[in-house]
């Protein structure tokens, strides 16, 4: 080891948060031990910085100036604000579960008439009960060498647990709405678990939002455990307030012959890190992973994907697109790993960035790590501006330049939105896109 690095103000603050909270964070003996080990791992390396390869383009040590105090439990005023918060999925008929300032709020959530085979529980209750499933999940499948995720494991207080019994096909999507209401900046650590039994199917939508102007900090993680021959559609929409820090981790372990559709959409936040750790554990699984980012102002959004083909005959498509305006910056890091023996893997990754200004920036780092010899893997990256020829074609038909550009941006990001199988989801994402375009004008 080299020279000991002095801890930053934020790192010291995070240590204070943990020391102050660890005695009352939910969890029995086992969970408490998992938390302590996770915090030790974080503490040993500190906040990630640009010399940590997985965080190369997002220097959290520099960017995160301090750790905000932990959010307190939502009072009536906070709940009222959450009730009135704009809901992209309003009217879609989804089963809505509401997390306010990091706490699951049953009275705002639709828990009536749960379909047979569906169980929903606040994560805090599950942690307090020290369920073996959770302690295993919290510690095990997770590549807990990631410092942001380790912090989440140490400090996660609440979230939601959704269990779908084997063979249960849920036709009604579930929307987990994470709403920050505080104007006073706080930090929130949430952890959720979705377990889809063998042969089951579900659509899970996550949304994250909060007030503009508040420098609140979100560290959220979602674990998906998907059984053999199951189908999961997972959609995550980040429309955090303009000054917010959002660190999100998706940990997905997918069984054999399953279908995994994942779509991430970023249209808010000041600094967003969306990291996905996906393991196609069983053979013959098909995964479609898409991401779209709409960035303007000084926003920075980093999507980092690591997908492992652990078994044979898997197919995955990774498609990521970013529209970057002003001085914003989009980062995409994508790594496909094909394990020894994962023959006949077919994986294709593509990332494209559309830059709307000379100062906008897009960084892309694709990686392939292949340990099998009979596979088809590829990746591609493009970065470009709006095509002048296309723009002229639209203008020559009378469409003014601003509208023509908006149309081309819609067309560009449309490929991501079309990935959602559910029409209401597509409509909601299109609504988010139009809202973003409208704010730019």
């Amino acid at each position, binding site marked *: 080891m080299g020279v000991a690095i002095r801890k930053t103000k934020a790192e010291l603050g995070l240590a204070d948060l943990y020391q102050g909270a660890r005695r009352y964070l939910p969890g029995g003996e086992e969970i408490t031990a998992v938390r302590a080990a996770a915090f030790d791992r974080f503490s040993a390396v500190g906040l990630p910085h640009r010399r940590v390869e997985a965080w190369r383009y997002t220097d959290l040590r520099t960017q995160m100036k301090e750790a905000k105090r932990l959010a307190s439990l939502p009072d009536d005023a906070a709940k009222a604000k959450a009730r009135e918060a704009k809901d992209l999925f309003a009217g879609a008929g989804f089963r809505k579960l509401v997390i306010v300032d990091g706490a699951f709020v049953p009275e705002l959530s639709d828990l009536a008439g749960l379909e047979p085979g569906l169980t929903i529980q606040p994560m805090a209750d599950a942690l307090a009960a020290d369920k073996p499933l959770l302690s295993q999940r919290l510690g095990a499948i997770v590549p807990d060498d990631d410092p942001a995720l380790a912090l989440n494991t140490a400090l996660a207080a609440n979230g939601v647990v959704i269990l779908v019994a084997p063979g249960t096909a849920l036709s009604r999507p579930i929307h987990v709405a994470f709403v920050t209401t505080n104007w006073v900046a706080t930090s929130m650590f949430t952890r959720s678990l979705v377990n889809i039994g063998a042969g089951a199917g579900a659509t899970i939508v996550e949304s994250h939002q909060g007030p503009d102007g508040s420098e609140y900090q979100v560290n959220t993680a979602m674990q998906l455990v998907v059984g053999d021959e199951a189908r999961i559609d997972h959609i995550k929409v980040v429309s955090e307030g303009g000054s917010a820090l959002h660190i999100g981790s998706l940990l997905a372990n997918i069984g054999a012959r399953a279908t995994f559709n994942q779509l991430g959409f970023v249209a808010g936040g000041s600094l967003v890190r969306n990291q996905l750790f996906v393991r196609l554990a069983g053979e013959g699984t098909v995964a479609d992973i898409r991401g779209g980012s709409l960035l303007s102002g000084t926003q920075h959004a980093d999507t980092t994907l690591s997908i492992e083909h652990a078994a044979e005959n898997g197919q995955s498509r990774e498609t990521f697109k970013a529209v970057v305006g002003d001085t914003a910056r989009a980062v995409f890091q994508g790594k496909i790993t094909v394990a020894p023996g994962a023959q006949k893997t077919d994986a294709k990754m593509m990332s494209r960035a559309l830059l709307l200004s000379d100062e906008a920036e897009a960084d892309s780092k694709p990686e392939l790590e292949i340990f099998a010899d009979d596979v088809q893997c590829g990746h591609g990256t493009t970065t470009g501006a709006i095509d002048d020829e296309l723009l002229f074609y639209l203008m*020559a038909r009378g469409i003014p330049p601003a509208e023509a550009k908006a149309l081309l941006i819609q067309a560009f990001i449309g490929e991501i939105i079309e990935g959602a199988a559910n029409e209401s989801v597509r409509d909601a994402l299109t609504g988010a896109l139009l809202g973003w375009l409208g704010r730019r004008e």
Partner: protein
Amino acid sequence: MTALLEIKGLHAEISGGRKIIQGLDLTVNKGEIHAIMGPNGAGKSTLSYVLAGKPGYEITAGEVYLNGEDLLAMSADERAAKGVFLAFQYPLEIPGVATLTFLRAAFNAQRKARGEEELSSPDLIKRVREIAKTLNIDSEMLKRPLNVGFSGGEKKRNETLQMALLQPSLCVLDETDSGLDIDALKVVANGVNALRSAERGMIVITHYQRLLDYIVPDIVHVFAAGRIVRTGGADLARELEATGYAQYQSEAA
């Protein structure tokens, strides 16, 4: 009477590049169809782009008026709203934009620019379908992304559909016959002929006389080395088919 289009002493070049149009004078009155014929590289397509307002060309001298208004002072979208329509030689493909979405955006943008009321979607769709039918355009095609995967003939029919929907006062057809077999050519020509009117003028740019058998012009110009070197009636086109452009190229040089 004010001419529909008046081009006076026009000189244009590719920005930072070579001179293309070198002293062009042309007047198109309402109700007239002018054919501009000439060898490859004469600047025919540049003329169409300059009229439509494509960026990347520099006007070094001359004036262009549409119904007495300074066309060169307008952006491409403003020109379209004033009635200029360029049928592209190579219509562009725009993945992700459905043809109908594009037609609606164009139609309503022009209406808005002219201070007219926008047309409701059902009314617009009805109108588009009626035109599409006359051009043998399948309504499935209207749902597909604009020009993506369209054959050459489908693209040109789609251009004609746009022209018929937008009802421009000046149509500029750039090599509309290129990439068309004879059947497709007839369909497109019928569509264009249906738009002939006493209120509308057209400039038909072509290398070959073939198109002019179907869209019969009132006046034919020979365009070489950036300007008009000869003007005549419809029979001039047939003469050119026999003699070729060689004499004009040497004259211009």
